């Protein structure tokens, strides 16, 4: 398996097979090189690179939609995935300089079919105001994904026309994928244990 992924023409092995990543993977030097070479939109926004995706952008919350629309204009036709992460119990994660860690993070994976590339956008969303602008006007496909992120993590998407729960029942309390949401379990009943009465 070679590192010459089809994205090589654009200077990035965007989707290197996962097994090959450690050998050919982005070392510190190549990481900066590819990041600068591919930061086609909004170059002032902090970037990083990671395994399997060479461009990860960390826009501030108010530049999120700008970022998405610039990427869309740069040929990222489709939004592959959107999800939210609650970093309550893992605040010290690695972030590039200039990015302040907040409790929630909304992670968007964009896909360019024409360039065979992926980029990831990670937006920090604070705990006291968990609201982010909805991307539904730019990528209508995020409809269900934003509803899922709202339902399970509790990030609201401003401008979403139908922000209701999607997986949980509509009268459910709380957002299950938050880290302070109890898991809940049924106690194991052994044979010797006293019965319910």
């Amino acid at each position, binding site marked *: *398996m070679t590192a010459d*992924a*089809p*994205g090589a023409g654009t200077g990035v092995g*965007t*989707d290197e*097979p*996962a*097994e*090959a990543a*450690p*050998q050919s*993977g982005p070392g510190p030097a190549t990481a900066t090189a590819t990041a600068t070479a591919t930061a086609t939109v909004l170059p002032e926004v902090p970037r990083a690179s*990671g*395994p*399997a*995706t060479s461009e990860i952008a960390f826009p501030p919350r108010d530049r999120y939609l700008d970022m998405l629309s610039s990427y869309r204009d740069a040929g990222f*036709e*489709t*939004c*592959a*995935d959107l*999800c939210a*992460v609650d970093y309550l*119990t*893992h605040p010290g*994660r690695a972030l590039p300089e200039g990015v302040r860690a907040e409790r929630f993070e909304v992670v968007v*994976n964009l*896909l360019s*079919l024409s360039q*065979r590339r*992926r980029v990831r956008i990670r937006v920090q969303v604070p705990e006291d105001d968990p609201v982010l602008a909805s991307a*539904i006007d*730019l*990528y*209508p*496909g*995020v409809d*269900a*994904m934003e509803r*899922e992120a*709202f339902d*399970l993590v*509790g990030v*609201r998407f401003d401008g*979403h*026309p*139908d*922000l*209701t*729960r*999607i*997986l949980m*029942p*509509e*009268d*459910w*309390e709380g957002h299950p*994928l938050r880290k302070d949401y109890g*898991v809940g379990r049924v106690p194991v009943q052994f044979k010797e244990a006293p019965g319910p009465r």
Partner: protein
Amino acid sequence: MSDDFFVDDGTRTRTAPRGAGTSEGAQEMASRVSTDPVELRREVGAVLRLPEGGVLDSGDIDVERRDDETMIINMGPQHPSTHGVLRLMLELDGELVLRTKPVIGYLHTGMEKTGEELTYVQGATNVTRMDYLSPLNNELVFSLAVESLLGIELPPRAVWIRMLLSELQRISSHLMWMATNGMDLGSTSMMIYGFREREMVLSFFEKATGLRMNHNFIRPGGVAADLPDGWRDDVDVLCETILARTYEYDELLTGQPIFRERTEGVGNLTADQALALSITGPILRSTGVAWDLRRSMPYLAYDQVDFDVIVGTYGDNFDRYSIRLNEIRESIRIVRQVVERMPPGDYRSQDRKVTPPPRARIDESMEALIHHFKVFTEGFKVPEGEVYVAIESPRGELGCYLVSDGSSKPYRLHIRGPSFVNLQAVPLLLRGGLVADAVAIISSVDPVMGEVDR
């Protein structure tokens, strides 16, 4: 019946009020009078916010319709042909579908939350239950994500075994789809044939992995065991039989006038719409976009085998049918190459961190026993980081976003289920069609509710 029959009691708020409680209002489709006009236009038009502006113009959409001319009915969640517990709310004007809203979540079991409580060793048993028609693909994407964070390389045989199983899984999944799609269109014999052939594949899986479904066979670090003796013969027979049978399906369905009448030109989708809605897999390819992750962003060793990406032209039900049928043939082509070129060697990585010592070593070495015990009780630690890995499942892009905090359990495990996203095409595909076609269209989207609800 007058309009005030539909009392708007204010409980059906369609947009989220800021700072309200955690309940955000009804998931169900509301009657026209109590729906916000913007939202109503969106529902009637199914997709209005296309990036390039004008595929559907909101001005063309007639929302001025008296409520008593239309009827909202429920289809599902217990309807036999909605493929599991999918519930669709349809607004009908006679036989015509005006609006559709899928209501999902009936099979939600919190598997992403469960995944945070299981170690990476146990994780594959959890994810394999999501898309129950292609469990091996779920295991594969999870394992690829974990390995990507670990930075380990697999021996070639493990990669090729994974590819063999993944392609056989695609065959079995598409056969299952052929069966249920035939059933939905009234061809009971296709139902029986499809299940019969799928059972052949599942028998091979049982022989190789021990289980027909939910195998937990592809694990971080390789696969659980080597292929059983005589696997080449089994796979050869399987390929030969199923390939011959696909030509029987051609005779049964492809050329049959009734089948073509019911599928051609039904449920049309354009490439722009599909891309805007993040649709992937056979539905995207039916619109003429040659996008297959096996070809476009190869993983495993797909860049070393020869196969064609099947695309359609019209984006209708018939295209989706023929794509899946021909993908069975392409998968057989790949499987045959894998059988021919299966490299010798180890079936799992010998990285001591992730792979337990072999059984024989446990008998002679205390350290090996301790190591074995620790791998299965504590699990192995995965370096901090986050990764998104995607593979081509039979239904489209199956992605896994994995965040590790350096412990032996995932900090966040998110599975991007292709069925979940593809379901967004249903309102658009059904719009303006007949109720009778609704069943056929749902079937052609091929949603697996285990993956939709997770």
